[in-house]
């Protein structure tokens, strides 16, 4: 039984406000055969500078320290890759550090960069993440990813991470989905949605116009998860620049980018789900004491928490992040979210972990239409659109960059620049991609606040990055 002390439940405090002023990213793809990683990082940085109407050299003058997210040295076969990128960006001799927390690496890099600014160590930092997953064939890539499970107890069991999620999918489907076909179709609907939104994103790797039946008929990877339930394996880079208030004002003076208030919080749980002891569900501000007392009556078998159906790390990241930023109800306080849809099942699990829906009712977020840009049942704007980038299923999962890509996407909505940055015909052309004839702007009208969840392992590390228009803070 995990018991929290008062000290452990303290809401984190920043010494001063931190602002996101710009962000950028490269093209994402399964393989990028003619560009080195440093070229992709320079693409991302150059874009970030251009959003401020600055040259890269002008932006670099403000940067004081750097936080690099690169998950897997063994994928790129390069230890100290951070030093390579730092050098190629021309940022020596500034201090830099590499951050590695699996799938949450991008979010964790933002977490470290935020703390550097909040503490006063730096007034302006670069957070850059990348991954190079095309240097090995896919089955060897799956092997390398499985090395992020316990190498003695889990990895030898198939060497495939999808399997470690599939046992969760099975448990969740049978307990909370009541083994209903309709629940399985709801999972498939998530994949349809994310591949569809990827069609409108020039950076995205896997745009597809598919149906629920296409997902349900795609090859089984680890039953009940099929190929189209799974995230991508990608190459690409993304970056963000974080500042204190004075630097943020100076950097954005000549650009449409408004400095966005930023908070990042983190949680963790055991690498092996096997080790997760039963515990009382920690509550978020929009939940009430006792509301889960009868969970096992409503969903027989649902009495073990987090068991194989919840992610305590995500719940704790949300607990800290909501406390820092004043969020009391994510569905009411937020306008857009990017969630870590490594698999369709983990997307649903996360809806509950971060309080978009109560435990047991995650499917309703999809079935109500609330998660869409435009609710397909009402034709009205979705209440809380999610993964308009296409997410990890449709856009990319270049692991070290993913959490930063999500943050870039959220920021473009709050800046009201989503349409400009995703609809640019020149960008589609530069990426050698065809802009669809039915291209649709997914700009969330009037977006003021957003959240990105970055998630590692089978829930070993999770970060919650929250952005707000400073004129629409909650407190």
């Amino acid at each position: 039984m995990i018991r929290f002390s008062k000290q452990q439940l303290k809401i984190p405090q920043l010494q001063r406000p931190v602002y996101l002023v710009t962000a950028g990213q490269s093209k994402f793809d399964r393989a990028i055969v003619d560009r080195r990683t440093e070229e992709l990082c320079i693409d991302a940085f150059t874009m970030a500078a251009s959003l401020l109407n600055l040259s890269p050299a002008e932006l670099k003058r403000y940067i004081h320290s750097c936080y690099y997210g690169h998950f897997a040295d063994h994928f790129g076969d390069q230890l100290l890759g951070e030093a390579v990128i730092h050098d190629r960006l021309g940022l020596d001799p500034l201090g830099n550090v590499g951050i590695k927390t699996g799938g949450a690496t991008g979010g964790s890099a933002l977490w470290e960069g935020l703390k550097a600014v909040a503490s006063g160590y730096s007034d302006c930092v670069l957070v850059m993440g990348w991954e190079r997953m095309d240097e090995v064939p896919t089955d060897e890539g799956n092997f390398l990813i499985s090395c992020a499970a316990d190498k003695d107890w889990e990895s030898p069991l198939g060497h495939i991470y999808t399997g470690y999620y599939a046992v969760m999918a099975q448990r969740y489907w049978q307990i909370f989905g009541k083994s209903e076909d309709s629940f399985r179709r709801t999972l498939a609907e998530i994949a349809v949605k994310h591949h569809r939104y990827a069609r409108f994103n020039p950076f995205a790797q896997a745009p597809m116009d598919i149906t629920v039946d296409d997902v349900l008929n795609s090859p089984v990877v680890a039953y009940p998860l099929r190929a189209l339930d799974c995230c991508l394996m990608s190459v690409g880079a993304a970056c963000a620049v974080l500042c204190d208030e004075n630097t943020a004002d100076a950097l954005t003076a000549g650009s449409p980018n408004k400095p966005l208030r930023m908070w990042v919080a983190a949680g963790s749980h055991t690498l092996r789900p096997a080790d997760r002891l039963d515990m009382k569900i920690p509550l978020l501000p929009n939940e009430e004491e006792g509301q889960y007392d009868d969970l096992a009556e409503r969903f027989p078998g649902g009495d073990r928490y987090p068991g194989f159906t919840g992610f305590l790390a995500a719940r704790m990241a949300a607990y800290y992040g909501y406390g820092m930023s004043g969020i009391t109800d994510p569905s009411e306080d937020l306008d857009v979210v990017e969630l870590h849809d490594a698999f369709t099942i983990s997307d649903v699990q996360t809806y509950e972990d971060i309080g978009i829906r109560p435990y047991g009712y995650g499917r309703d977020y999809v079935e109500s239409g609330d998660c869409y840009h435009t609710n397909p049942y009402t034709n009205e704007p979705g209440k809380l659109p999610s993964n308009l980038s296409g997410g990890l299923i449709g856009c990319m999962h270049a692991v070290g960059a993913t959490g930063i890509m999500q943050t870039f996407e959220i920021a473009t909505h709050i800046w009201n620049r989503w349409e400009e940055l995703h609809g640019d015909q020149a960008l589609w052309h530069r990426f050698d991609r065809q802009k669809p004839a039915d291209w649709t702007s997914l700009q969330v009208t009037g977006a003021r606040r957003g959240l990105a969840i970055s998630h590692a392992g089978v829930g070993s590390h999770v970060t919650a990055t929250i952005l707000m228009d400073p004129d629409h803070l909650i407190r």
Partner: protein
Amino acid sequence: MSTFGQVFVKNNKYKPQGSFHHLTPNTPIRDADNDWKLLGVTNPRDMTYIHSYGGEAVFFESLSKKRLMATRCDSPDCDSRGTVYMPFRIHCPDCLCRNSIIDITDTAKTTATIHTFMVCERSGAFNLLEKPIKFINIEFKGVDTILMSYLAVGEPRFGQKVLPVFRTLEPTYTILDLSWVVDGTAESDLPQGFSF
């Protein structure tokens, strides 16, 4: 001299024997759509890691002896005293004292049931299990955690009673030496090299 690298320990030092890596030449990667222009190079590499099980070695050694070892916190002042861990944890996560090693073979034989499962059709490279692989997560009476393993015989379902089987013939000394079969499986149906 063995083709494969082998290691023993003498005087507290690793003594590698045999071949630990194999040299394979690089080859160029060229662009078939662009006049076979050079794009990169392959970097083949075959290495053998030398890995210590540390305090978990007893668990892996015991599998070949048909015993399933777990651990328990017996620290008198620990809030988690009495918590039983399978997977084996060397130290209590609360007090960080060294746990007691306990034999739960009989508990496993009488109380193991499937908590959840999945059937894996695709694997990563270097997988040694026959596909489809039936992953199972197993509950035991009196054990506080849920072990991940694989079902060798039978069809998985929630609550299905399962029995441990152990690779006693040519053990690998890895977690693959432990598998499970549904209750009622005959000895003659066990995978080659395994026994109850």
